[in-house]
């Protein structure tokens, strides 16, 4: 028995044959699976050939954008038609690309306004942080995104370019009914103001 190692026992040979058969079987199974996979994928793409394309042909077909989509920035007016902006510099301060600049001034009745107000849309990233920061709802973003120009300087919008006649997203809100000018009425008479607390009743 010189070659007993290479031949092995009968049981070992049987196990080997079985394993070999299994390997061929699994190979065949894999092959069938591959063909089925190919067939399925070709069928899927062929089916899509006869579907209606979902392309929107942009300049001809314009999708109506949601009111909250963020693009060109406007300055709105309050219900009385006065500028809402009080030139508080909050938008300019929060702007991550520093594209908003202004000069504040004060009217004779003590109401603040922007002497000039400038947004450089070539820098604006339309993040909407200015809108979030604005205490008077003056600065708002609109869905109008078609503002590209050949000359970069044409993208610098001055106050008169930014101002609109509407109240934007909230027509009724008026900041000056709540705060911002010297007190007109008595304590507790302003909108949203609770009557003053009588401190003496708080005593134990």
């Amino acid at each position, binding site marked *: 028995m010189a070659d007993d190692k290479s031949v092995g026992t009968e049981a070992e040979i049987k196990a080997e044959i079985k394993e070999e058969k299994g390997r061929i079987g699994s190979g065949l199974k894999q092959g069938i699976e591959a063909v089925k996979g*190919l067939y399925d*994928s*070709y069928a*899927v*793409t*062929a089916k*899509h*050939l006869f*579907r*209606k*394309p*979902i*392309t929107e*042909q942009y300049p001809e077909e314009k999708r109506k954008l949601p009111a909250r989509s963020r693009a060109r920035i406007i300055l709105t007016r309050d219900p009385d038609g006065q500028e809402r902006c009080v030139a508080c510099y909050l938008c300019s301060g929060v702007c991550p690309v520093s594209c908003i600049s202004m000069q504040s001034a004060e009217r004779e009745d003590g109401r603040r306004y922007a002497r000039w107000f400038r947004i450089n849309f070539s820098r604006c990233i339309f993040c909407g942080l200015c809108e979030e920061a604005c205490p008077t709802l003056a600065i708002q973003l609109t869905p109008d995104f078609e503002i590209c120009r050949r000359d970069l300087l044409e993208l610098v919008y001055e106050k008169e370019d930014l101002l609109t006649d509407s109240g934007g997203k909230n027509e009724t809100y008026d900041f000056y009914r709540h705060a911002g000018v010297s007190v007109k009425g008595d304590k507790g008479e302003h909108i949203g103001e609770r009557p003053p607390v009588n401190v003496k009743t708080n005593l134990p």
Partner: protein
Amino acid sequence: MWLFGLLVLLIKIAAILAVVFGTAAYLILLERKLLGRLQIRLGPNRVGFGGILQPIADGMKVLLKEDLIPAHADRTIFKFAPAVVASGALLILAVIPLGRPLTVRGHEIPLIITDLNVGLLYVFALSSMSVYGMALGAWASNSKYSLIGGIRGAAQMISYELSLGLSLVPVALMAGSLNLTEIVEAQADYPFILAQPVAFLIFLISAMAEAKRLPFDLPEAENELIGGFHTEYSGMRFALFFVGEYVNMVVLGALVAVFFLGGWHGPWLPGPVWLFLKAMIVPIFMIWTRATLPRLRYDQLMQFGWKILLPVALLNILITGGILVWING
């Protein structure tokens, strides 16, 4: 008489070149449109009615582009390589039979540029040539992306060249000739695809690898290698690579038509029209495949070529040869 022959030859060459370049240009448009529709998009539709003039616009654009040569490129080879790829594909057309000989005023004009008796070998020799164009262009670009693309391409095309060649041996055995006209004549009764479906599949898969199409587009692999072997090319030289690829698709389609689909044989229509229609089947299938299958990994590509296609092709030769010997006694 001598002049007449030359004139006929020139007319034939001009006609074939015009048809093939036109087909290749419009194949690019067809690919973009069809691929778009397969991906439920529209594809190009701005230039002309439904985008019909797109190839002309593309051609104008590519002609007006700057012809850039990288600073450390091997200039001679760099300039030369795209021509090798394109001319290799075009020269195969010389041996493709378009139809039965025409008879004009008593002169018999064969509808083939040159009826080589070793046409099959000529086809293999030229289809190997495009590897040189690609690998040399990649090497001469002196860029890592090009080089990786070129090496991948060389390895891939050498591997698949083998099964491409071996898959046609049964066809040559059945036709009893290496002459393409005689191979087509042998299919007068039935196309060889019915007798040799395995050889047809192997040839089709290898042809996709030869044409560097998905799922075998590793030499180009846009998202791995930018542009692969043609990364550094621009302008007309890039266009030559690009058009060469599409001409190659048309040529491979014509070869499939000649070897497996019965060439010019077909009812009603004239021979060249049948050949053209049959030759368009493979490019359209390649476009469909491009929309369907993802790219193979490099090791999968090699494994598939050497461990599956090559043994199956050899087995096919053995079985075909055995059956032919048995039948012919």
